[in-house]
């Protein structure tokens, strides 16, 4: 498998009141060409920030990459100029966001907004650009595409707006599509439409997708491989089937056990005790230790290393130190 994107030891921090607050602590994972990678975690796990770091969308915030590499094709995105980065954004890496209601400019017509990346990156002339825009809208299943381009976002439903966002994102044939909680704000039946659309487009275009979500159901439906994040770190990485069949990290186990499943007759759900930690006040050692059912003395002392396990899996937990302790990264 050819790697499209490789993230190594990525660290990102914010500065508040002259104090740096590190949110991402050495994130490692990669995305292969033509694959859907799921990035799972609860609020505050740093999954959205990871995507913003890849796009280097920090303008207007104090966020900044403070370490590590983001290898995209043959370029390291962490040290290319802003103007080179702009050529990648929207062209090679495109992004869709959680809130389709607020992610479109309310005072610009759909067409104008859709044409922006097309003109910018494909250099098409007015007429061709417009034809391209209409064809993309049709591709994402928008009826009356020719009329829609003259309408404003507030005239469309949430599902339609998310289709527009997808159209905008795929308009320049990106190699990587980052979808940050693309269906969280949508109703179940609309979510089904959008997921279905994304799956189809991904397969047709052989695009790589980084799907960020907190919904394990969406992960199971959509992804080939999964990366689980907790408190700004990757705690587990595995093939989607293996992850759900035999989760390794106690956090992953807890997460899968917490979700009520249809048709499952269970009086009580498993749950993870305690709360998601505050990034400014993380515990020492393994960040999950205070909530972990399998906690050992060492967990409170030292952060577990990223352990490579069989089948290309990895897990950051002291429980597996004995298994393959020699291959620490």
């Amino acid at each position, binding site marked *: 498998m050819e790697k499209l994107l490789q993230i190594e030891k990525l660290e990102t921090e914010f500065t508040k009141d002259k104090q740096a607050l590190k949110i991402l602590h050495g994130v490692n994972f990669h995305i292969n060409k033509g694959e859907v990678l799921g990035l799972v975690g609860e609020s505050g796990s740093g999954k959205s920030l990871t995507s913003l770091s890849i796009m280097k969308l920090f303008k207007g915030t104090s966020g900044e990459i403070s370490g590590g590499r983001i290898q995209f094709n043959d370029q390291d995105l962490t040290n290319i100029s802003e103007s080179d980065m702009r050529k990648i954004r929207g062209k090679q890496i495109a992004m869709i966001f959680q809130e389709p209601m607020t992610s479109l400019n309310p005072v610009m017509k759909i067409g104008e907004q859709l044409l922006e990346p097309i003109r910018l990156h494909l250099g098409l002339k007015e007429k061709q650009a417009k034809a391209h825009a209409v064809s993309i809208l049709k591709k994402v299943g928008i009826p009356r595409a020719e009329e829609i381009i003259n309408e404003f976002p507030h005239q469309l439903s949430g599902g339609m707006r998310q289709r527009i966002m997808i159209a905008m994102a795929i308009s320049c044939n990106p190699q990587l599509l980052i979808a940050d909680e693309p269906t969280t704000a949508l109703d179940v039946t609309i979510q089904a439409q959008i997921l279905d659309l994304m799956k189809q487009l991904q397969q047709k275009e052989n695009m790589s997708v980084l799907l960020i979500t907190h919904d*394990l159901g969406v992960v199971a439906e959509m992804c080939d491989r999964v990366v689980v994040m907790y408190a700004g770190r990757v705690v587990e990485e595995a093939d989607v089937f293996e992850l759900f069949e035999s989760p390794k990290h106690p956090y992953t186990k807890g997460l899968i056990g917490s979700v009520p499943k*249809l048709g499952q007759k269970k009086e009580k759900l498993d749950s993870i*005790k305690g709360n998601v930690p505050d990034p400014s006040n993380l515990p020492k050692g393994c960040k999950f230790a205070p909530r972990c059912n399998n906690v050992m003395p060492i967990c409170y002392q030292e952060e577990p290393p990223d352990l490579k396990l069989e089948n290309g899996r990895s897990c950051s937990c002291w429980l597996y130190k004995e298994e393959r302790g020699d291959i620490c990264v």
Partner: protein
Amino acid sequence: MSNTLLKVSGLRKSFSIPDGMFGKKKLLKAVHDVSFLIPEGKTFSLVGESGCGKSTTGRLISRLIAPSEGEIWIDGEEISQRKESQLKAMRKKVQMIFQDPYASLNPRMKVRDIVGEPLAIHTKLSKAERNKQVSEILEVVGLSEYHAHRYAHEFSGGQRQRIGIARALIMKPKLIIADEPVSALDVSIQSQILNLLKDLQAEFQLTYLFISHDLSVVEHISDHIGVMYLGTIVESGPKEEIFSNPQHPYTKALLSSIPIPDPRLRRERIILQGDLPSPVNPPTGCRFHTRCPVAMDICKVMEPPVKKGPTADHFVACHLIES
């Protein structure tokens, strides 16, 4: 057979909303002929997508708003048209838990005063007596006296929802209306709260009206379920029936739309076309016919009557069902 604690029949609510910027008003039919009942100590869930009227139904039953038509019987008393001054007794018996644990607790009040507020409203207890009861109830929901002197925003979402639950419990209510109580929470916290709600129900013989868009959560917590679409209940029945033997095409589609956290179960979905129609201008006949994959001619003109489903307690409003 236990008593019926809540009985709702023929409930309707329309809001008049301004049409554009001009004087003309339009009617938004939020709830359109909703009937169901909840036996004491059981959980009934209303499930549906946004705008289906499930929250409005909850607000009607708690009489935050007055229904346009219909009856609401709570513990043997009809309260649908009562004035606020006549609702005090009912307000003691019925408590609410809200979706957003951040917004539903006054940020300027301490936990002690938030949880004790129902006591301050309904009883003449002294402050010390109120505080004592607050400490007791905080223990019940897994918090402690220690938390009482702090402000709600010092807590995480899950803890706040516990505070909200404590507030709902302190009057020893009979009915709790929980409007999306876990949808704002992280997955790992969501299960804590669901478990807590179940424990409390067993301990205090509570009756729940549970409102949610999440079918998996609903399946876990409910005894009976009502599936709502555009202001009406299209199908209702015991949980097992709804999930294992759904009759209404909308219920079927809804069930098949839920992503299941098991990659081996990837399946063919019934994907509904189009968007939800606006409740201001709902479709004629069966409200679902515009998106229904098996719609017939009659569906466009005639509202389907509620028919008995395959088993007792199972009701479906669909022309396809032979009664």
